[in-house]
């Protein structure tokens, strides 16, 4: 474990050196994430300012949900962005082979190969939103609430990573999984709002099938003292189950890996 941590740190440093070679890229990447998030927020604000609240949810409360989701997404973005492109950038050009002949876990190697600094933008936006919403809503900011948020963001991040890992593993069969990942990943947009906004089936879907709800709606409900908030405590368990299933699927994919011609 310690070995992997040290190695990971070493990969981070190397990645940083590469980024410094492409300095412009570095800044564009970080700024574009902030701009991208900003644009979604403006759209959200434009809709919500028309009405004081929707089904009893105020603008600030929705911002809290949105902010929590953004932080979880940031975890996925930072640590597991390579899952998006494993088919296109590694399997198809034959680059994946090298991960399989080295004395470290191939998945670790894949993830460590590219830490995605663009996630800084997610963290800036997510943290600002959560802090702003907490202050506006006069929610207590103390060790307990901060600890709770950290636990939820990590759980949510793992849920994001797990779902992307499952869809990424389809690359072993279909070569390029970006389309599959896109379809599953973007269901997270439902979780930007309270799940009660939608038809019941969507709520069930976002809770039990693609459980992004645990990254946003449930923890926010808990912080706001809503009845459904207790569900948030399931998040770590859901994350654990998801990542275990996802890793099994990944291993199954590895068995099926066909490599590409010489």
């Amino acid at each position: 474990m310690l070995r992997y941590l040290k190695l990971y740190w070493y990969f981070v440093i190397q990645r940083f050196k590469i980024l410094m070679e492409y300095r412009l890229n570095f800044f564009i990447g970080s700024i574009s994430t902030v701009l991208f998030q900003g644009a979604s927020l403006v759209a959200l604000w434009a809709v919500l300012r028309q009405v004081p609240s929707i089904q009893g949810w105020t603008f600030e409360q929705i911002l809290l949900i949105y902010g929590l989701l953004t932080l979880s997404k940031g975890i996925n973005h930072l640590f597991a962005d390579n899952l998006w492109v494993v088919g296109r950038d590694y399997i198809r050009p034959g680059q994946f082979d090298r991960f399989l002949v080295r004395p470290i876990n191939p998945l670790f190697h894949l993830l460590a190969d590219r830490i995605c600094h663009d996630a800084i933008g997610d963290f800036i936006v997510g943290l600002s939103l959560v802090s702003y919403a907490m202050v506006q809503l006069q929610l207590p900011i103390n060790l307990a609430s901060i600890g709770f948020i950290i636990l939820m963001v990590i759980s949510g991040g793992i849920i994001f990573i797990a779902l992307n890992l499952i869809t990424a593993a389809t690359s072993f069969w279909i070569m390029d999984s970006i389309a599959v990942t896109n379809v599953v990943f973007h269901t997270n947009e439902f979780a930007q709002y309270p799940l009660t906004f939608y038809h019941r089936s969507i709520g069930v879907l976002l809770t039990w099938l693609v459980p992004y709800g645990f990254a946003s709606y449930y923890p926010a409900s808990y912080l706001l003292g809503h009845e459904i908030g207790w569900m948030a405590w399931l998040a770590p368990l859901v994350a654990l189950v998801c990542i275990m299933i996802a890793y099994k699927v990944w291993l199954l994919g590895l068995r099926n890996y066909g490599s590409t011609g010489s």
Partner: protein
Amino acid sequence: MVPIIDVRNLGKTYRTIEKENGVKGAVKALFRPQYREKVAVHDLSFQIDAGEIVGYIGVNGAGKSTTIKMLTGILYPTTGSIAVLGHDPQRERVANARNIGVVFGQRSQLWWDLALIESLNLVANIYEVEPSRYKQLLSHFAEVLELDEILKTPIRSMSLGQKMRAELAATFIHEPKVVYLDEPTIGLDVMVKQRIREFIKDYNQTHNTTVMLTTHDLGDIEQLCSRVIIIDNGSKVYDGPLNAIKQQFGKFRTITFETNQPMTSVNLPPACEQLNLSEFSLEVRFDRSQISASQVANAVMQQLDVADFTLNEPDLESIIKHLYQNPTAYNEVGARG
């Protein structure tokens, strides 16, 4: 002695989806896929001992790369078993990976954007090479592979020859006991080729490293390998000393005749075989244990107005070519196994 590489009844069958042409075919393949099985490697067995350099050769698509990929743990075999220093390369991937080094001539294992020295540092970290040992090896490799000038160069701006030298350094930096080289000299100029062969030979002699080498360059084979395994259509067709092939086929010579007038058909004496016939030239192969060159030349010159002729010594290339073209010829050299 326990073999270093022990391959038994190894087989690999690929299952691919058969697609008909056009959009309709693609849709059909999506919902009712028709699978087609392709046997890439069939019932392959061989053992390789410590310190051997084995040339693993065959035409394109014969199953060379598939075999290497199974030996290195990249692909799962369909049937059979592999043990490399006692490890199953798939189930004991990490343990196996510590012992082996792999070069795929056509693709780099280094980081495109990193300077070579950074890449090497990273590789050394992954393999947990002891720092003082790493320093020693690095300065040794820098000398024999002439790396000094490229240590600070990122892989992306290297020439093909520089890249291969960099690959070799990265492959040997953890002092592997077994090395697989898949086309290590492909596309390189004579000078670089020579340096790489010398490096491999030297490393093999000083470390008693076991080397398995696939190549289309018979110079690699002649200079490095004492043993050759030939694979054809996924099956082993020859496994034995390089010398046996050479001796057996060394008894063949060819004579090329050139004429001024267009060629007519020729009756050849026994123990001769017509190889190539074009308008003004004829190539004949004969078994010199049965007939002499002058007898062949006489027989031909009685029938044709020969302007010139040359007697050719067989080289390994033509021997292997002959083997590829005449599968039955393998029996003549008494393939082992």
